């Protein structure tokens, strides 16, 4: 099996900047007053989930979408692409290889965006705290707005987590995307410490 024209993998890639923008993210300041309140209310009630099963927690997401727990009651729905979704559920442990894809998917999501860490593994590594391939603390790599603990958390726990997230959004405390923009250098340094073969642009959306 030979492929002609495939670029050499060892060479540093020249990214085609026509396809994406690599400007670092900027903070979006909050406006005071009733308009911001309206924004918060609207954002809290239209959470669309990115359907990316990053870990074993994704098996409890399927009951969540289907008849019994029926997440559509709360105005939520799974979306297949990061461009259409604003809630990223990191369902369980993230291995280094997945973390790279998580970072990329997170950066491709558009503001306002929120992250929910599902399971004990995202809090402190959980069962795999001593593993050589899974990260311990998710909040060192991407900002996390709320955690749902447990291994694995029941769908009811997830629904409670959504309620908590909504409350935080309405209070104006779910400012993960702004945190990411503010501490961009720190997050990037952490990500690059773990992801050894960094072959993507620093920011892409």
């Amino acid at each position: 099996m030979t492929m002609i024209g495939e670029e050499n993998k060892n060479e540093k890639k020249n990214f085609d900047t026509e396809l994406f923008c690599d400007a670092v993210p900027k903070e979006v300041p909050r406006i005071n007053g009733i308009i911001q309140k309206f924004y918060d209310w609207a954002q809290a009630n239209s959470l669309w989930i990115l359907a990316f099963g990053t870990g074993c927690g994704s098996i409890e997401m399927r009951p969540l979408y289907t008849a019994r727990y029926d997440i559509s009651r709360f105005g939520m729905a799974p979306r297949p692409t990061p461009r259409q979704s604003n809630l990223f559920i990191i369902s369980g442990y993230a291995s280094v290889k997945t973390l790279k894809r998580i970072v990329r998917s997170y950066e491709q999501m558009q503001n306002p965006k929120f992250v929910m860490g599902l399971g004990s593994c995202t809090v402190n590594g959980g069962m795999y705290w001593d593993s050589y391939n899974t990260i311990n603390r998710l909040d060192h790599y991407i900002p996390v707005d709320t955690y749902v603990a447990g291994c694995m958390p029941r769908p009811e726990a997830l629904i409670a987590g959504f309620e908590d997230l909504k409350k935080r959004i309405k209070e104006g405390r779910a400012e993960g995307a702004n945190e990411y923009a503010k501490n961009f250098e720190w997050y990037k340094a952490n990500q690059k410490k773990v992801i050894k073969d960094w072959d993507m642009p620093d920011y892409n959306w």
Partner: protein
Amino acid sequence: MEEMIERIKLKFNAKDINRQKATLVFFSVEKKDLEACVLYMKEFEGYSNLTMISATDWIETGTFGLTYHLHNYKNRTDVGIKTYIDRKNPSMVSINTLWAGARVFERELKEMFGIDFPGCPRVDDPFALEGWDNLPPMRKDFDTVKYSEETYFPRPGRSTKDNVTQMEEKLYAVEAEVKKGIAKTVRKNK
């Protein structure tokens, strides 16, 4: 099965014969005989299915133990053919021409133990890890706790309880009390 073991003993000088179950036998052959032995088992003894290839790190003796698990669909028996290779410069002959599935196993062993299989297609491709620059992780001298603590920002406050005391206190509280009492009395009488 007994006759097969006798034949293997004669032909390949098989040692360490371990009749684990009625349907399972382990034996070890020399490294140079392994490919011939596997081929013989496949072609003449009917062990036509390669279940898996696994490796064990025997760091005390400086060897890797390779085990080739074969299965016979006809008389429903399994064999594990073992061989030992040098740990310093691990290299083994590839059997991907005998079984197509072997290429996956060999690729995994290359990554996890650093055992080389020259001639196996795509053996150098990373299997599960990406950008790994340390020792092969399944080797015994690779310390996964140390690596994890150095790399992955452990959250402070994780306390480890000894399982024995934890279980005694939680499940067998009375017994633990009695045990403590006895120890106390013994100490007193000393």
